[in-house]
């Protein structure tokens, strides 16, 4: 993992605010910077509502960022980017969605769902080529060619997620945002889908932004992991490093909450319980650490300034005044 190479995707000071009426502002993503190298899987974890999905959707330009820069493969996307350039980028950046029951149009056949991106980007010359490509994709993700003419409601959750993966692959992207692609699936099916994603990554040299809240799965699939809390990244580190030496008190608490399959180990383990409540993301204090209300190690300085990400070990960034 060379940090020297130019990153494939670079996000700098990205902010995404939502106006929720009466002048109130929801800061879903607040000043987030990170990068993803080519061919790497970047895991993004955090509790529900911390802004993971918003971050993923902003990176892929489903939402217009409030401010900040997103550079993808040397192309900076901003207001001056033309419609055509954006259209070209939609081919290279794809997304796999969380809910396999909501992410497929119930009124279209599988062949039309998978070919939708090919239709939008004119990636085939004839009707036969379209069908052949779809069938090849279906077989690649573990479905059969007979499935092409069926409708989504006839499939199981795992099969639907495979259709979603085939749809994303159809436009030959090189970057895929996986927005909790396995959290709605059975555990046995989760493993199959993760294996499929890993195989596809090897075959096509894909780069993943993998959003999840299942920490053990993220550890398995990711090269580097970012931990989000209340719209900000609090810790970024290589997967191994993060799990061996978590430095942010929030990460430590998260890791201590992972259930282990071994009851003997589980009994001996001490869990870090967080006290205090999650602050409302609508009225966050500007100049104090967001984790203050729940932090077990907070001091006076935490109330006075917001911590920035600091590199405390090689490649290991933490946003905490108390960490060292």
């Amino acid at each position, binding site marked *: 993992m060379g940090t020297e190479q130019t990153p494939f995707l670079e996000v700098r000071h990205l902010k995404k605010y939502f106006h929720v009426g009466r002048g109130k502002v929801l800061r879903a993503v607040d000043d987030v910077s990170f990068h993803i190298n080519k061919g790497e899987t970047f895991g993004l974890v955090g509790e529900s509502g911390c802004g993971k999905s918003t971050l993923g*959707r902003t990176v*892929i330009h*489903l939402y217009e960022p409030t401010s900040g820069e997103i550079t993808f493969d040397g192309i900076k996307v901003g207001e001056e980017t033309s419609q055509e350039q954006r*259209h070209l980028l*939609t*081919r290279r*950046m*794809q*997304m796999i*969605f*969380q*809910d396999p029951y*909501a*992410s*497929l*149009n*119930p*009124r*279209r056949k599988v062949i*039309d769902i998978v070919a*939708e*991106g090919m*239709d*939008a*980007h004119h990636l085939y010359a004839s009707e036969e080529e379209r069908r052949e490509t779809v069938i090849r994709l279906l077989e690649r993700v*573990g479905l059969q060619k*007979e*499935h092409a*003419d*069926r*409708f989504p*409601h*006839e499939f*199981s959750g*795992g*099969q639907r997620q495979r259709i*979603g993966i085939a*749809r994303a692959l159809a*436009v030959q992207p090189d970057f895929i945002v996986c927005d909790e692609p396995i959290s709605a699936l059975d555990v046995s099916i989760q*493993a*199959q889908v993760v*294996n499929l994603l890993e195989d596809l990554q090897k075959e096509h040299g894909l780069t993943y932004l993998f959003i999840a809240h299942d*920490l*053990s799965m993220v*550890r*398995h699939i990711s090269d580097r992991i970012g931990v989000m809390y209340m719209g900000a990244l609090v810790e970024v580190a290589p*997967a*191994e490093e993060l*799990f*061996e*030496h*978590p430095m942010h008190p929030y990460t*430590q608490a998260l*890791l*201590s909450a*992972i259930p*282990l*399959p071994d009851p003997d*180990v589980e009994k001996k*383990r001490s869990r870090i319980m967080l006290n205090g409540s999650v602050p409302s993301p609508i009225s966050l204090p500007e100049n104090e650490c967001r984790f203050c209300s729940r932090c077990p190690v907070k001091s006076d300085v935490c109330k006075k300034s917001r911590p920035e990400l600091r590199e405390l070990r090689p490649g290991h960034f933490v946003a905490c005044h108390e960490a060292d």
Partner: protein
Amino acid sequence: MTNDCVKDSMFRKVKVDEAEREHLDAPMTSVLADAWYRLRQNRAAVAALFILAAIVLLAIFAPVFSRYSFKEPDYNAIFALPDKAHIFGTDQFGRDLWVRCWMGCRISLMIAVVAALVDIFIGVTYGAVSALFGGRVDAIMQRIIEVLVGIPSLIIVILFLMAFPAGVGTIIAALSITGWVNMARLVRAEILKLKNQEFVLASRVLGTSSRGIILHDLVPNAVSVIVINVMFTIPSAIFTEAFLSFIGIGLAEPQASLGVLINNGYQVLQNYPHVMIFPAIIIILIMVCFSILGDGLRDALDPQMSR
């Protein structure tokens, strides 16, 4: 702090046996085929469908194949009771009620269907524009609707009919002025719900144009709401038309609509009840059957809604 939790070595890759793979054995169905199947399971709805089909066929063909005309008087057969020559009897001018009933039914249905089509056209466009543009456009359009809802629609309709010459076109226009509001609200709600669904987001990520999203994602998924609403608009349009004709501001003689016929019969109800009973039965059948069929369609198209 070291952590003794998950290690990467805990993960092992398993091979999935081909034979254990999921298979689809059920016959291929589309959403519409499924809906048709569910509708057929609903006996009341099927019966309603057949009765409505029969009424529509009679309304179209009965006047054509009868030897009587709906407006030719026959002063030798005034107020004839139902018999072989006149199946439903005759009215005060000796006009055959069988022909007049189906003629009236034809006009009532036509008014209702055209009014419903206008509702669809205006309501769907208005609701879709309101939902898709959102923000200020949506707010203004919704305020306009609220003003329209605030005024009792019967008053608007009656004033409209006073101002313009009576006729089929005027009645359709009067019914349409306020009729589309309901449709617009339903379509707006449906599209607001749909447009943030993940499959619409997926279409946007894939680079599909707005036109493609409207055509393939939004409209086909809003169809059931539109169809169900039409099933309830048609009988209410028939009823409103009948009501207007009954109070004497709808269609005029010799034109026949179900409302005109009931009004005629009502005046001689004590002496010749058959003049009113037959059109009344037809209008009741139409209203009840549309309601039952509408309920059945809602359950069939939206299975999560029932029970």
